[in-house]
């Protein structure tokens, strides 16, 4: 049995990704948010969990009005950044763990 060490959450603001990409977190408008996530950044840098289960919502990225599952579990080996309308973000491909993901899906 794995040991669950922490749950980390953030306010939901779709513009966060763009603000980070365009180096806007130093601007006064973004400072309250940036300061708010600093403790989480520090915690994760210090504790380095073996596995992260990332839960997020999909705003017209992989899913659209064509098909919207209420809940879905990603089980791929890799997750590429979506093109949400301005080209895929220049962020690393997320490394999945297909075997573990399937274990979760079937548990």
């Amino acid at each position, binding site marked *: 049995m794995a040991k669950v060490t922490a749950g980390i959450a953030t306010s939901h603001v*779709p513009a966060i990704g*763009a603000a980070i990409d365009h180096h806007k977190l130093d601007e006064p*408008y973004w400072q*309250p948010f940036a300061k708010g996530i600093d403790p989480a950044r520090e915690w994760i840098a210090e504790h380095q969990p073996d596995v992260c289960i990332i839960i997020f919502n999909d705003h*017209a990225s992989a899913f659209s009005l064509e098909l919207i599952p209420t809940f879905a579990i990603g089980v791929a080996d890799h997750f590429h950044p979506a093109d949400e*309308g*301005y080209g895929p973000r220049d962020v690393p491909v997320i490394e999945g763990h297909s075997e573990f993901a399937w274990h979760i899906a079937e548990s």
Partner: protein
Amino acid sequence: MREPRDYDDIPGTYVMDGEHNRKGYHLNMFCMSLNQQENRDQFRRDEAAYLESFAMTDAQRTAVLARNWLEMLRLGGNIYYTFKIAIFDGLTMQDVGAKMSATPMTVDEFKQMMLQGGRSIEGNRYKNEAVEEKVDG
């Protein structure tokens, strides 16, 4: 016609319910198409011609061409979809947030409002709130 809903009475809020989805489906799916570079290129070349390939209403096409952000929401648009047009135009969420305000607001005013916790609930609970408060007070 659907039954009236209690949330119909919230001023300036367009709840993404079944009716709203039904009205906005083609508008939102046009927006969704902008997730693909070749579609963005086509839209860039000739916006009106590209919109013709979607079964949108004339009012929706006009709102898109005029970048009438608030009208797009009134016509069934959803911000997570219409925002793709904003990105296409190089606008930020704060830019369109200000433009979607029914009362004129600059981007700086919008940002300031958000930093202070967002739009005040006072006067924004019900469409007739201002009248009610006078009666109650």
